[in-house]
């Protein structure tokens, strides 16, 4: 970690973190609210011997990523909701072919063209597999610029380790806000993990095939189970979450990304007024930290409120984690509406109060 703090906006910081992680190829198509990321890469990548290419569509971009990944590169693309929808075909193929890459989605309000305000409306798409077929992708949800740096840096290692796509899921807030950040060191390319599956030309070895077409049903089933075993390994090894002021909490707020950031402020504010509320923040949305959340219920917390910037999507995972035992409430704000911490603290106070009186 460098000593120097730099004031940087989220998009630039993610770009720089990717380069420091060994990413030398970026393919993408402009879409708000993340245009500064391709702009940064177009400036910065040539300085480190990398390649930036502005594609003709997100469809092309993700397939360029697919090709570069087959050729063994650390590669990324970024977009926002409608563009990520266009990429789903490629993401499904990459899952089938077990290709590694990092994809950034700075979500906006939807469906359709929606708006460009901070939103978390793509939770289902990100965690359920927006493309076709039985597959998963690792989903990392930063709530600050520093965390966006750290998770982006880590994302490339996860992608290579598991031969999976890693999605960085943020929104216009994470993308646009400026915060002081410290960057991890530049990874020398020669230190990156070697890959024994890439297409580089069959020099001194048998030729290789990377495909997702498996016509024989038994072979296809075996491939599916192989993927499932890998996903189960990720579920065991990768869940990340943050716990904040949970020790004596009567009520736990579950929120991720920008919503969690606001919720943290609201928790502090409510605490000052004697309202015992805490925050559980999933950092990996897939794999979702089911066990950690269930642990809170087993420790005696019986009221949970899911705060998310959509019409109520993550609450389905929270239900899976908690079952029918505790009281589960939803505070959902779709459409790009971002409540402030004062407003949210009032909501929390009211909910705790109604819990006591009920």
């Amino acid at each position, binding site marked *: 970690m460098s000593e120097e703090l730099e004031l940087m906006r989220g998009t630039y910081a993610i770009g720089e973190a990717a380069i420091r992680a060994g990413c030398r190829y970026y393919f993408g198509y402009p879409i708000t609210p993340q245009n500064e990321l391709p702009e940064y890469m177009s400036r910065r990548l040539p300085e480190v011997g990398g390649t930036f290419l502005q594609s003709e569509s997100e469809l092309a971009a993700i397939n360029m990523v697919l090709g570069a990944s087959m*050729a063994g590169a650390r590669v990324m693309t970024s977009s926002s909701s409608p563009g990520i929808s266009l990429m789903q075909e490629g993401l499904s193929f990459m899952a089938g072919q077990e290709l590694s890459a990092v994809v950034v989605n700075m979500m906006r309000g939807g469906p359709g063209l929606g708006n460009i305000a901070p939103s978390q409306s793509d939770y289902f798409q990100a965690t359920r597999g927006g493309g076709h077929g039985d597959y998963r992708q690792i989903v990392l949800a930063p709530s600050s610029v520093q965390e966006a740096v750290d998770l982006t840096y880590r994302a490339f290692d996860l992608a290579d380790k598991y031969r999976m796509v890693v999605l960085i899921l943020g929104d216009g807030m994470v993308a646009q806000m400026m915060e002081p950040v410290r960057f991890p060191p530049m990874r020398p390319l020669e230190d990156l993990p070697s890959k024994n599956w890439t297409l580089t030309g069959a020099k001194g070895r048998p030729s290789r095939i990377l495909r997702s077409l498996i016509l024989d049903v038994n072979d296809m089933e075996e491939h599916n189970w192989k993927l499932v075993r890998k996903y189960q390994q990720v579920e065991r090894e990768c869940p990340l979450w943050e716990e904040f002021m949970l020790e004596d909490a009567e009520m736990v707020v579950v929120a991720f990304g920008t919503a969690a950031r606001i919720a943290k402020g609201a928790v502090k504010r409510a605490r000052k007024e004697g309202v015992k509320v805490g925050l559980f923040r999933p950092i990996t949305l897939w794999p979702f930290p089911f066990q950690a959340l269930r642990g809170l219920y087993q420790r005696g917390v019986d009221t949970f409120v899911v705060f998310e910037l959509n019409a109520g999507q993550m609450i389905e995972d929270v239900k899976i984690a908690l079952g029918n035992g505790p009281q589960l409430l939803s505070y959902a704000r779709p459409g790009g509406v971002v409540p402030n911490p004062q407003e949210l603290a009032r909501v929390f106070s009211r909910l705790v109060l109604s819990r006591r009186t009920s």
Partner: protein
Amino acid sequence: MKKVFSRTKALKPVPFHYCPGCGHSILHRLVAEVIEEMDLIDRAIGVPPAGCAVLAYNYFDVDMGEAPHGRGAAVATGIKRVLPDRLVFTYQGDGDIAAIGTAETIHAANRGEKITAIFVNNAVYGMTGGQMAPTSILGQVTTTTPRGRDSSREGFPINFTEVLARIKGTAYAARTSLHDPAHVLKTKRILRKAFEAQMGGLGFSVVEVLSPCPTNWKMSPPRAFEWVKEEMVKHYPLGVFKEIEGGSLAD
């Protein structure tokens, strides 16, 4: 005894699954022979399409990576940008390159990507069972043009290679045919020119190959070869539409 013919090392020793009289078998061999003759077996990376030729990776003994339907040019772009000294080629059908993959192909050409598209035009969607292709000719009966292709309903057959030839980043664009031995040999020479354009760093290259599909045309193989010669060539004139001079292209 003098050996006069053998299987090229760029093909695996396995029989093709293609139908009798299908052009893919001939064309696979031509492409493989050119790769071997240019000493590029260990530097070649192929991108097969969706369609009958998706199984090309079972035959070419070079590295092969599958692309989603139509996205060959984008996938090849990604590979070539990472490995600029390799031979990177796509192998695409008419629907793949000239319908669903139009945008990817035109923009790869326009960027002058140093890749080669081998474009097999058999005027029909083969693997899905004989539906209309963008290159089906007027009047052609297919399973989705039961009354024959009518330009007022289905538009016109597209001369896609001529379109690509007009694009500035295209270094080499040619149309050839497999309908008789002379044209088969000519096709091989043209494939070599296209690969040379790529390896010479001149830009995008495309070779369209008119190719019979007896099964979906519901013709005997000899009749299908005649149909290429008599009907397809009328709509799709053979020739070199663009050839940028320079590098190893001038031979």
